[in-house]
């Protein structure tokens, strides 16, 4: 049994690494599985200016390596292996990797991330690596003293465009909105407007990329006039948002229409023991800091889940004799009275019947699992099996009858 992990994190971006830090620091046996390079999208971002405590001078790769070292220092294992399938049913989840190895864990945290969206413009695929790029840090060097076009106007697009100006002669940004309107934050917009190397083409979209082997020209369409024009850049950088990398879990956990994993505030997915963090989940802001925050929450929620599950097994499911599980809530007076009456009654049985109290305010999972709709509810277990359920208005006499029938 020793090779069963407490937590397996799938994905080594900031969300996954933070979950690894919190998980391993809580002494949980934690494994982070990472397909290729660590750090997720953050590791391809040179300019990282908004992670608290790390001002200018920090780069994405440096911060991500520091997070990975941090996780390992607390005992988290980081392995390079691509996950190809998941079995998320039951108490022990199975994670199947491309190497053929099968990992087992009580908890799975999905930190699957997102990837740059492709617009499928004519020529976009053909010229990938031939002038079309999605990674400024990878390819900016090539465009020293050359001209490039940037498509997009969100935070990433404008910040990466600024980075590109350190290399390229001109950076022309094609913006779908009217003149002066950008989706990015104001600070970045002001910096970009003041940068003499940046040129703007407003109210327009990229229609086609052309060339012989390498990018030679692009066709731009003005949305207001319908007019087409052609310019001759050497490179085209796309920063038009991301799509979640959730194909692996489609049909296994609930996703929204765009394919993002739906979670609650504890990062729990629709499946017990499975959590999702970072860019792959439905959320308002996708940044390194929010991914890290998700990771911390998921690991703490997972730790609590494990404790509750183990506790319930130890006190209820693994007990031979009869166990009475009473669901109560601090704000429902009737339930408090019922529980104390039960306690008095069971005291007289000299411990033949055990009582376990569940505060429904704290433990919603058991409430859902056993379909508890009214408080108080009493469940009677024997040899780990649920044998009867008393719910709503029952008297202590009813409980006695149930016990007699055992």
């Amino acid at each position, binding site marked *: 049994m020793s090779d069963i992990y407490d937590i397996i994190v799938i994905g080594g971006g900031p969300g996954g690494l933070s979950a690894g830090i919190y998980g391993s620091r809580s002494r949980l046996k934690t494994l982070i599985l990472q397909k290729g390079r660590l750090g997720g999208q953050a590791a391809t971002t040179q300019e990282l200016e908004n992670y608290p405590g790390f001002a200018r001078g920090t780069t994405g790769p440096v911060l991500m390596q520091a997070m990975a070292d941090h996780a390992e220092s607390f005992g988290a294992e980081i392995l390079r292996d691509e996950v190809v399938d998941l079995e998320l049913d039951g108490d022990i989840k199975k994670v199947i990797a491309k190497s053929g190895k099968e990992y087992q864990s009580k908890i799975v945290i999905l930190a699957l991330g997102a990837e740059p969206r492709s617009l499928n413009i004519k020529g976009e695929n053909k010229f990938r690596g031939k002038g079309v*790029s999605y990674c400024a840090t990878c390819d900016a060097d090539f465009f020293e003293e050359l001209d490039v076009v940037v498509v997009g106007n969100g935070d990433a697009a404008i910040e990466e465009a600024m980075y590109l100006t350190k290399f390229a002669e001109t950076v022309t940004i094609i913006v779908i909105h009217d003149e002066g309107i950008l989706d990015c934050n104001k600070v970045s917009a002001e910096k970009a407007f003041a940068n003499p190397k940046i040129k703007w083409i407003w109210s327009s979209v990229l229609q086609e990329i052309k060339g012989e082997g390498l990018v030679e020209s692009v066709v731009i369409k003005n949305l207001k006039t319908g007019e087409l024009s052609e310019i001759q850049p050497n490179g085209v950088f796309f920063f038009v948002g991301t799509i979640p990398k959730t194909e692996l879990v489609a049909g296994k956990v609930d996703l929204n229409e765009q394919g993002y994993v739906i979670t609650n505030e504890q990062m729990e997915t629709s499946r017990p023991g499975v959590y999702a963090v970072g860019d792959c989940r439905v959320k308002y802001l996708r940044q390194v800091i929010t991914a890290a925050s998700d990771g911390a929450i998921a690991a703490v929620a997972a730790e609590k889940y494990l404790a509750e599950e183990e506790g319930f097994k130890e006190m209820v499911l693994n007990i031979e004799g009869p166990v009475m599980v009473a669901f109560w809530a601090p704000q429902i007076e009737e339930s408090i009275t019922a529980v104390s009456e039960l306690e008095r009654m069971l005291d007289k049985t000299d411990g033949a019947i055990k009582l376990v109290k569940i505060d429904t305010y704290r433990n919603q999972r058991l409430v859902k699992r056993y379909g508890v709709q009214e408080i108080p509810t009493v469940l009677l277990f024997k040899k780990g099996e649920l044998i009867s359920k008393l719910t709503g208005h029952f008297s202590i006499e009813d409980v006695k009858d149930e016990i007699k029938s055992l």
Partner: protein
Amino acid sequence: MIEVNKNNFEDEVLKAEGLVMVDFWSPKCEPCKELMPSVHAMTKKYQDQAKFCSLDTAGNKRLAISQKVLGLPTIAFYKNGEKVAELNTDFSIEDVEAKLNELK
């Protein structure tokens, strides 16, 4: 792996007989550096079946562009001096090994 650059690329790659694989990378390219250890491990396995070269595009930009490489990581295969296949930007070490096996 043989380090190639603008001075020896012609001799080592374009004038070489048989199969040559060139790994284009640069120190700023994180995906390249991530891929590199597995590429090096793979080349050991096939060392008798092809020639393996590594090209740092920083300082060899013109050379890379002359080979129509304008995005990293790129791994290109040459046979008797002609480029016969190329993988770029989004590929895994398994894809490289499969391509190598197909061409060798």
